[in-house]
Each structure stands twice: as structure tokens, then as C-alpha cells.
């Protein structure tokens, strides 16, 4: 389907079966995509079908209330004047919602009103409310972004289980790679209104087609020009690669393939980049260190032993064999 936006045109073709994560920079058209599918906005051209039902196209534009398309809004949009039970029952059409309240673990909150709930509880109410509709499809707009990082992991796991049980096609807009991995089997990347890459999270990590995808998946993406076993990087310097290549390429290095040292070491690694540390970000069982735009991931123990902190000069090294090359034409 196609829809003109302020500065570009959203043009997307997606076939969703199971859970699809949609990612992209802000303003890429992700939320608009969901609104078009739900019927809250109309595409200028195109076709939307769900399970054989035509929702949009051929002169037909089904209003949102007749699409049975569950929508979990980014800020959850719970009705503040209703209790949790009334919220969930709103679209349930008289069916018993108690099993659903149990399923998402909010039965004890049934009489509470949304303003008193925590972020995680609201998220569950919004999810239960969308499921009570017995939807033909589910749309979730950044369902975890309103939560604090501490609860996000647990809620993501629950959400993944609920989505699996619901067994309807679902689209989850997210901006975090780990969320996409835990929630969805496939990921579509939208930039400037177009799907630039679609695949499993692993495919995105191993062969990112754009610098955004690489950054999103957390791998290093260094564009340059290859000749023989060398790539001259656009940012300056060169990188040795295993094998031959030529023309415009992107050098891909996974952050965990990069080692850091305080002084030059004589080992088998052929690639060394020296620079001052820009950022040190702890990420659970590893620490992500950025040197001159290149991300390395090491264990917290190593980071502590080397006393790494912003401003410290280090040498980042990796083997030519851990470098992958992507032709960019």
C-alpha cells in the first residue's frame, strides 16, 4: 500500500504470518503503517487483506470497528474512567473475560482504574483489551517502550508467550534488536517509507544491507573501497580482509570479535585501530565500548581489569578472518 506523508511516500508490501517486528529510525513511517492497517488512516492506494477478508482496496474501506484488528497503542490508551475489567470487556462483546484476565495475570486488578496502575500492569491491560476482541490480527506500537528497563525483559518474555498463544498474525513496532529477537520470528526494516530489508534477526545481524540495519543489530558497518585483500575505509585507514574483493563494499565486524588492549600486542590479528574511548555502556553480561565509532563488546571483568573509561586510549584489534564483506555496488 502507498500513502503520501509530509516528506516522503510510504510504500510497503508485507505478507505477515506469525509475528513480524517492524523496526526503523523514528519518522520512518512505522506508526503510520499500523494506523493504515487498523483503518485509523486511509492509504492513498493499495490493498489490505486479512485472512481472506478485504479491508481496503477495490473501492472498499472498512471502518476500524469492523476490522477486528487489535491495537496496542504506545501509551496504551486505556480508558481512564473505566475499571480494568470494564476496559478489557469493552470490545469483548459479552464473552467471559475472566480467563483472559488470568492469562495475562491482572485478575487481582480487575476493579482498579488505569491511572493507579504501574507501566507493566497497564501494558498487560492494553494487551488483554486487544485480545478480548478476539482479533483477526494484532498490532502493537512499541509495546515495551513505556516500561523501565528493569521490567522490560520479563514483560517481553510474557508478551512473546501471549502472542504465540494468540496465534494470529501480529506486527510489533520496536526500536530494540533484543525486543525484536524475543518477540518476532521475522523483522522488517523500514527506512524513509520503504522496506529496505526483511529477514530473521540472525540474517539482519549477519548481512545488514544498510548502516541502519547494522547499527540496529549491533554490528559494525564500515563502508569503503576494496582492492585485493585490503579495504580503504571512507572514514580513513584500511582494514585487512580474508580473501579478495573489489569495488564499493561494507566491512562487517561483530563487536564480540574485537579485542581491546592498552598497549600494542604482537598477535595474529592484522587489524588494529587506536583511539580514545567514547562510551562505556554496561549491557548485562557484557560491556559495550565504543572507540572512534567502532563498537567492541567485552566481559565486565576485562573492562574492570583494564580500567576502561571514556577518554582512555586503547587499541582495538580483530582478525582478518572475522571480517565479513558486503558488496554495496
Amino acid at each position: 500500500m502507498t500513502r503520501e506523508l509530509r516528506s516522503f511516500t510510504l510504500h510497503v508490501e508485507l505478507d505477515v504470518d506469525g509475528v513480524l517486528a517492524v523496526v526503523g529510525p523514528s519518522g520512518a513511517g512505522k506508526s503510520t503503517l499500523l494506523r493504515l492497517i487498523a483503518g485509523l488512516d486511509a492509504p492513498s492506494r493499495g490493498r489490505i487483506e486479512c485472512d481472506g477478508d478485504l479491508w481496503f482496496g477495490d473501492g472498499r474501506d472498512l471502518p476500524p470497528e469492523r476490522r477486528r484488528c487489535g491495537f496496542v497503542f504506545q501509551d496504551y490508551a486505556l480508558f481512564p474512567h473505566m475499571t480494568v475489567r470494564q476496559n478489557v470487556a469493552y470490545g469483548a462483546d459479552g464473552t467471559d473475560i475472566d480467563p483472559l484476565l488470568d492469562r495475562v495475570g491482572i485478575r487481582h486488578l480487575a476493579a482498579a482504574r488505569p491511572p493507579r496502575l504501574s507501566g507493566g500492569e497497564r501494558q498487560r491491560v492494553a494487551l488483554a483489551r486487544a485480545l478480548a476482541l478476539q482479533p483477526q490480527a494484532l498490532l502493537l506500537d512499541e509495546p515495551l517502550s513505556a516500561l523501565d528497563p528493569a521490567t522490560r525483559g520479563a514483560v517481553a518474555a510474557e508478551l512473546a508467550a501471549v502472542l504465540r498463544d494468540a496465534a494470529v498474525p501480529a506486527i510489533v513496532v520496536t526500536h530494540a534488536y533484543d525486543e525484536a529477537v524475543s518477540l518476532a520470528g521475522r523483522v522488517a526494516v523500514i527506512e524513509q517509507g520503504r522496506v529496505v530489508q526483511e529477514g530473521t534477526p540472525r540474517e539482519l545481524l549477519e548481512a545488514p544491507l544498510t548502516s541502519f540495519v547494522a547499527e540496529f543489530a549491533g554490528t559494525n558497518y564500515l563502508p569503503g573501497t576494496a582492492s585485493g585483500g585490503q579495504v580503504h575505509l571512507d572514514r580513513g585507514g584500511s582494514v585487512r580482509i580474508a580473501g579478495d574483493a573489489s569495488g564499493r563494499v561494507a566491512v562487517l565486524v561483530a563487536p564480540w570479535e574485537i579485542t581491546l588492549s592498552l598497549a600494542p600486542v604482537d598477535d595474529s590479528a592484522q587489524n588494529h585501530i587506536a583511539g580514545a574511548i567514547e562510551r562505556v555502556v554496561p549491557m548485562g553480561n557484557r560491556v559495550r565500548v565504543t572507540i572512534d565509532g567502532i563498537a567492541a563488546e567485552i566481559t565486565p571483568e576485562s573492562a574492570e581489569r583494564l580500567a576502561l573509561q571514556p577518554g582512555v586510549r586503547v587499541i582495538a584489534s580483530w582478525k582478518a578472518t572475522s571480517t565479513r564483506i558486503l558488496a554495496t555496488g
Partner: protein
Amino acid sequence: MVVVGTPLAYLLATRSFPSRSLVMTAVELPLVLPPAVAGIGLLMAFGRRGLLGHQLALAGISIPFTRLAVVMAMTFVASPLYIRQAVSAFEAVDGTLLEASRTLGAGSGRTFRRVALPLAGSGLGAGMALGWARAVGEFGATIIFAGSLTGVTRTAPIEIYLGLSDNLDAGLATAAVLIAASGGVLLTVKLLGVGRARRFTPL
């Protein structure tokens, strides 16, 4: 006023259409008109020699100087206050909630009744109080369009005015009643507003 004005205000608040500002201006016109002009206007429209007076007379209906005339005059001058207040009350309702209602299978009518109306409730209440106060205080349009027939179209402000010349005590008594009634309405609206705010915001 409320029955017609509320859905009109909802449409004005949630839809954008080319003639929106035109409709809005028409709605607000009585607000800037001097009441005497409003009274003359109503008389010219519905009076015996007015635009519609002949047709009404044929149908056996005579509006001026009846209770209906009082109601019409009051509605004419008071409804803009209510509608303006109602429009801003509906505009203050988070549009995402209305959209959420739609995705949950509720058509626009049900969305209006179950989401927009309850959430705009306190604003609508305030608008009704404003409109009521303006209607009770109405003088100019009423006396021109409805006159001052004892027990039929003599409203409280007219009673007070006449009291000045022939029965000051009656005028003062009427004024006292109005003070009590108006104060009571204002207090009720404020209390309702506080109760609502307390229910909807986290403590």
C-alpha cells in the same frame, strides 16, 4: 440546548471540515449580539408580522409573549456559551482514546456515548452551569420577545427591575433567591469537578 448542542460540539471538536470556522462563527454570533438586538431579531423572525409569523399564524401558533418565547430567547443567548465550553471539553479528550474505542469494535456513536461523553463530563457540566446562569440572567431579549406578563413571561430579572419602581421588597427577595440558586449551582459544579479530577489522576 444540551440535546442539540452536545453532538454539534463533538463534531466541531473532532472533525475538521472546510466550513468549520463558518459554523463556529454562526454558533458564537449570539454571544456578541446585544441582547436587545437578539430580541428584535427573534421578534422579526417569529412575530406576528415576522418572516415566519404568517405561516405560524396559519398553523395556529403564536410564539411572542408566551412561555415558549421566554425559552427561545434564553436558548438563543445562552447556547453559544454552552457549545463553546463543550467544544473545548471534547477537544481536551485524548484522541487516541477515541481511536482505541474504534479499533475495539465500537462505532462512532458508541464511542461518543461510552468514551467522549463521560470524559468530557465535567466540562459539559461547567458549560451547562454557564449557560444556565446566562439564561436566568437574561433580560433584554426576553423583555422584547416575550414581554412581561405576570405569571407567564415575567422572569426573575424583570421582576427585580420592576421591583425598583413599585415593590422593592419583592425585588430584593427575588434577588436573594437568585444569589442562593446561582451560588448553589456554582458550588455543585466545582465539587463535581474536584471529584472527577481526583478519580482520574494517580495519587
